Structures are given as structure tokens and as C-alpha cells.
């Protein structure tokens, strides 16, 4: 029965939830669920997992934009139909995985992928730079300080070699979030690209009382920089600029407090976060570069700075050392020295837990 716009409740289905996961498992996955014995990376982007039953599954992982058209998905379906029995999956970092259950099917799949221009680059496995987790940017969100997809594209073009190889000391996870809300969970990434504002919001006094709930706006400010204020006839608010740290939270609550600004906005870079519990505990990313201006379309300074950090790491870190572990070993003073990045006031924390970040020991390197 088709949708009947005049009767919303007719046949209405709600709360059916997602399809059950195993509905879309390829047979080799279903049959060997929980029976996998070991895996091996055969070449960058190509994995084999071997089951206790003797079954094998070959996975080809390819990089992908996260912003994809239905036409591209259809291309993906074509490939999956041709080689993979009609199944495909996405990884937690937005790469695409094509799986085949027999070695003989592997090379034809790879050949097919490689024949399709640069749409399906193999890689994203092992000690590589895998796909960049990112957010909406100027494509869809209302609070971004930067674009997302464009920066990701520019960075991945430059780091392309690292995507399809295992040349790095360990895996390097890069993430991007276009504002301090950090939808990309960039706060625990080896390298994080973050959109930042640098001007306090301005107040459109004539609009505030119409479009915002003033008490909620006031409560939204983490530093209590916002106070109610009467401006002429208007109930409005006032911002203590000196207390503002540009989080944009007030703008999220109130569109009459625009914060975006072509001169103020740009990129901050962060390093040394990790998520895995391997060897060392998960860690937050720390500030590396407080500000780089927006340089569309290809953000060359951002790209080159990341490249410099990555190259320094690649040549200086030891095997298995994640970015964080490398910095822990050499010390922040050496990190700044070796990367040539400037250490500035902004690097010294002055928020809630600041005192836990200061150096309370005479141990440091000259």
C-alpha cells in the first residue's frame, strides 16, 4: 500500500528498529560467526581472516568519501553484486569493505576496483593513515567554523601515500570536526583538525527576544559571560567578551548571536590522542597549532602543517609508537622543536583543570 498523505496513521509502522544485523551478513560471515582464528594483511587494503572451520574471508578495504551520492552507492552495489554475492559493508571510519570467500575471487575484485579511476583506492589497513572521520562543515551544519569535506579531501590527497602503505610507526587516526561541538569525536585522535571561532558572538538586540529563550542562552555559556540586558525597548543579552572562549554554545541556543566570521574563523590542530587501550591508556588530543586561517579551496597551510607533523613522527618514532607514545618519550619540548611549531600562550591551559597540566617537576630537556 502506498503512502496516503491524507491519513498519516494508516498502516503506520513505528519503532520497528533497524534490520537485524545478520540479515545482511554474507554467508561466510554468518557461518563463521565467532569462529575466526586469525587474520593477516596480505597487502595494504587487503585482509584475510581464517576460521577454525578452515573457511577464509578476503576483505578489500577501499577509501571513500563519506559524502556519497546514490549513484556512487549504486556503483558500489554493482561491484558487490559482481564479486561479493551482493554484500558490502562500511567500517567505523567510513571505508568500504568488499569481502569474498575464496582467494580466486580476490584478484578480479581488486582489478575491478583499480579499473574505476580513483574512486576506490585500496588501503586503510595497518600502520597507515586511514580515512579521516569528519563532520558536516559548510555542507550541512549551522555552526561550522570551517568546511569538512574539502579539508579532508585536501589532506588525504597529500597523505595519499600513507593511506595505501604500512610505512608509519603505527596507525595514525586523523579526525575533523568543524566546531567545538566536536561531532567527529576528534578529542582522542592522533591528529585532530578542529574548526574554531575567534570572535565573540555579536548580539542582534532586535531579534533576541523573538527568536531565543534568554534564560537558556545565559545558562548555555560555560564561562558565565552572558548577562541579560535591556537595550532600548528590547529584552536582550550582553556578552562579556573577555570571558568568551568562542565555544559557540550560545549561538546553538540562539540564532541572534552570530559567531561565524570570515576573519575570525579557522583551524586548530591537535595531536597525540588515542582510543585503543593497547600498551597505553586512551588519551586526549593536545593543542599543536592554535590557529590557521581558512584557506579554501585547498587549505595549503593546514595540509602542509599536518604533513610536517606526520613526517617528523614517521622519521622519529619507533615501531608501534602511536603519536602520543612518541611524544611521551621525547617530551613536548622536543615535539615543538622537531616539528618547528611555535609554542605560544594558547598552548598553556587556562580552563577548569589547567593546574593538572602544568609542569610540577624539574624534569625537562633543554
Amino acid at each position, binding site marked *: 500500500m502506498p503512502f496516503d498523505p491524507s491519513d498519516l496513521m494508516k498502516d503506520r509502522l513505528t519503532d520497528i528498529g533497524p*534490520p537485524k*544485523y545478520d540479515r545482511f551478513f554474507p554467508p561466510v560471515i554468518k557461518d563463521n560467526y565467532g569462529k575466526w582464528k586469525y587474520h*593477516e594483511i596480505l597487502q595494504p587494503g587487503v585482509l584475510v581472516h581464517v576460521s577454525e572451520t578452515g573457511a577464509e574471508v578476503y576483505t578489500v578495504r577501499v577509501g571513500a568519501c563519506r559524502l556519497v551520492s546514490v549513484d556512487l552507492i549504486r556503483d558500489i*552495489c554493482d561491484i558487490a553484486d559482481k564479486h561479493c554475492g551482493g554484500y558490502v559493508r562500511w567500517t567505523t571510519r567510513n571505508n568500504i569493505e568488499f569481502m569474498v570467500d575464496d582467494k580466486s575471487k580476490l584478484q578480479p575484485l581488486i582489478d575491478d576496483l583499480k579499473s574505476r579511476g580513483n574512486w576506490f583506492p585500496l588501503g586503510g589497513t595497518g600502520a597507515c593513515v586511514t580515512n579521516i572521520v569528519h563532520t558536516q562543515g559548510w555542507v*550541512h551544519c*549551522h555552526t561550522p567554523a570551517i568546511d569538512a569535506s574539502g579539508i579532508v579531501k585536501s589532506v588525504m590527497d597529500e597523505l595519499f601515500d600513507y593511506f595505501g602503505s604500512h610505512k608509519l610507526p603505527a596507525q595514525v587516526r586523523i579526525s575533523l570536526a568543524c566546531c567545538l561541538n566536536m561531532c567527529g*569525536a576528534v578529542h582522542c585522535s592522533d591528529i585532530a583538525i578542529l574548526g574554531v571561532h575567534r570572535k565573540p558572538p555579536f548580539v542582534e538586540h532586535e531579534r533576541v527576544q523573538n527568536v531565543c529563550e534568554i534564560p537558556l542562552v545565559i545558562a548555555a555559556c560555560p564561562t558565565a559571560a552572558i548577562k541579560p540586558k535591556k537595550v532600548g525597548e528590547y529584552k536582550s543579552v550582553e556578552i562579556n567578551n573577555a570571558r568568551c572562549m568562542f565555544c559557540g554554545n550560545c549561538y546553538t541556543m540562539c540564532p541572534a548571536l552570530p559567531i561565524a566570521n570570515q576573519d575570525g574563523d579557522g583551524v586548530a590542530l591537535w595531536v597525540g590522542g588515542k582510543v585503543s587501550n593497547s600498551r597505553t591508556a586512551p588519551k586526549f588530543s593536545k593543542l599543536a597549532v592554535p590557529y590557521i586561517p581558512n584557506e579554501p579551496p585547498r587549505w595549503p597551510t593546514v595540509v602542509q602543517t599536518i604533513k610536517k607533523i606526520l613526517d617528523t613522527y614517521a622519521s622519529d618514532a619507533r615501531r608501534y609508537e602511536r603519536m602520543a607514545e612518541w611524544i611521551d618519550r621525547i617530551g613536548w619540548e622536543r615535539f615543538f622543536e622537531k616539528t618547528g611549531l611555535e609554542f605560544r600562550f594558547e598552548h598553556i591551559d587556562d580552563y577548569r583543570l589547567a593546574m593538572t597540566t602544568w609542569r610540577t617537576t624539574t624534569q625537562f630537556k633543554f
Partner: protein
Amino acid sequence: MALKHATPLLDELEKGPWPSFVADIKRMAAKSAMCEDLLGQLELSYEEKEGHWKHGGIVGVFGYGGGVIGRYSDRPDLFPKVAHFHTLRVNQPASKFYSTEILRKLCDLWEARGSGLTNMHGSTGDIILLGTTTDQLEPIFYELTHQLGMDLGGSGSNLRTPSCCIGKARCEWSCLNTQDITYDLTMTYQDELHRPMFPYKFKFKTSGCPNDCVAAIARADCSIIGTWRDKIRIDQDAVRAYVGGELVPNGGAHGTENRALDIQEEVIRKCPTRCMQWDGKTLKIRDEECTRCMHCINVMPRALKPGEDTGATILVGAKAPILEGAQMSSVVIPFMKMEPPYEEFKSFVEKMWDWWMENGKNRERLGELIQRLGMKAFLKATELQPDPRMINTPRYNPYIFYDPADVPGGWEHDAEGYRKRHQA
């Protein structure tokens, strides 16, 4: 075919070896006016270095409090086709396996009723259908449920779409049935997912082992991470094969060529607890000292395996920085067996939610509430006992809120007796 708007800046992003979203959108733009205007507006943003979207109004499907993000252009004069450009979040199947059949249906639906652009996937895990108009929301929902058997995911102050790593489906290390946990929670809590009832958003993420391939510890209010409490299983022959150079260390993650593993340097010394010994023939692990970090297993996947008495470590409170700064999840249940129907876990979840709903302020994440009221209040509410595994270090400040129940006479003084003993 020339597109409506010239995009000289965006065109630069068609160059280079990485797949180009611009090239992809342009392909769609040839048949979608929405895509054409989207490109135009994006080009404008590239020129002006400012976004061009307004706050989303409240749009959605009937009876649901989330799943749709409203979005409007602030230049409808220039880009009328994206004057409305709402997003739908479609709940992905756990760990994102698809049949081409369902994907094609989704593509057809979305090409007909939306921009034809998607995010595969959103950061939370949903399939994001990017850009449609208000009038299309109900038809899309109808077709989604009826023809695809799919439903919307979460947004707003409710449970968000749970997600998980690939786990037992293709990973030898998984200590949990991550998909089943995710599916079960999603189905059990459909109401919480679709109808805002919480102070703020709430996320579950499940990883099968401490490698945490879904980054649960960084971004889930409740992180479920697989672990084991018995011994790492060792195949000594395989260990020797690694040392002998017959097997590729780390499953090839550091180069797929055969090379002899320097077991001292690469494994023993990297073990955070230094609980391993290698005498040239046999690898010994003092499992009682092992903190199950996975490193040795990662490096020798054919020799080592997690134990067999598996379950989950439950951690709570992760979130992005708004308002109080970012948090990672903290251990509150060091070990819990996770077998369907997950009664013990759900009973914990419900106690946690009750406490949060009762005490949480508007827009206060669970982690922030725990910060504000203290871990003790959380543990009491969820009926958990204190355990040193919950902390990296005991308190180092002397500001202890002693429980009056432990003090003879509680908070009361005998003021008179005091002044008998002490002159003022």
C-alpha cells in the same frame, strides 16, 4: 552539461588521488537541482569563508521526537532548491553490513524524494540522508518502514543510535557479540530512541575488545568493551614461529614481508605491566598481572588469543567538550557477563537513566552529572560497590564528604557538653 552555478573553487577539489566528493556531487547535480544549488551555496561559502545554513526549525515525522535535523539556507534567494535541506538519520544495521538489494532500494527512495546525497555514515553511526524538504519527510518515513524495513535513528535529547565494531562477525578477538548487544539495546529502547525523555543525548557503543575499534571509550555515555578474566591463550609453536621469522608480526600491519620478530623489543618490553617472560623457547605470561591491553595479542595474532571467560567492562560518561570539557568514559563495572537477554546490564542501565532523569539538568550529559554530584552518588543509585578498578588514583585532596551514618551521632554535636569541656 553546464551546471547552474560556476564553481571554480570547488573544482580545485576534483584534483588529486583521493576520491572527490565534488566530482561525485557534480555527477548527481546533472540530474538533481538540489545538488546544483548545494554546489552553488558551497561555492559561496568557499568564497566568503562562512557557512550558509540557518538553525534548523523543529521538523520531524509524526510521533517521533528525533531522527530529522531541520536545515534552511540563509540565501534562498540565490539557492531556492536548498531553501529546505533537512537531514534524516536512518538507523544502520549493526556494524554496517548491507545487501545490495536494500542499498539499491534506499538509493531509489532517496533519489526520488531527496537530494540523492548521503553520508555513509554519520559519526554516530546512522545512515545520513542529506537534504530534503519538509513535505517529503512523512512519505520517506512510510516507505522506509514499509518497503525497506528500516527506521529512523536518534537525535535530540534521547537515546542515540547505538553502534559497535565488527566483532565476532570477522574478528578473532571479540569477547562480545557486539551486534547482538547493539541490536537488543536498540530494539528494547525504541521508545527512548524516538521520543526525547532524557536531559540530553545518550549514546551506547560496543567494542568487542580493548582495541576499541568503535572508539566507545571516547564518545559513548555508556561504553561496553569486551574483555576476559581468565588467561591469554598461548600457542607456543606459533610464538616460536614468529621469533623464527615464519609468521609476519602484527598480522602484517607493519609491513607484510616476513621478518623475525624481536620478541624482547617488540613485545616483552612494550607490555605495560612487564608481566611476560621469554626464555628463548617458551613465553610465560603472569596473567594475574596482565591488564589485557591487547598489545601482545595484536603483535602475534596467530600465537595469542584472549581468554575464554569473556564479558564486558562497562564505562560511563564520555562526551565531547560542551559544556564542561571533553570526558572519556570511566570504569564503573570492571566485569560483567553479557548473555542475552542482558537482564543484568539493562537493570543497570535503567537505574542509571532513572538517576540521570531525576537529577540531570537540561542539557546535562550523564558524565557531567556524575562530575557534579560525584561518583559515589552514581554508584549508590546504580547499586554498585566501590572498587579500585574504577580509579586511576584514589583522591589526593583531603576534602572527604564523610557519611554521617558512619559517625557516632552523625552530624550532631553536643554543644553544651562541648562548652562544659571548653571555655569560650
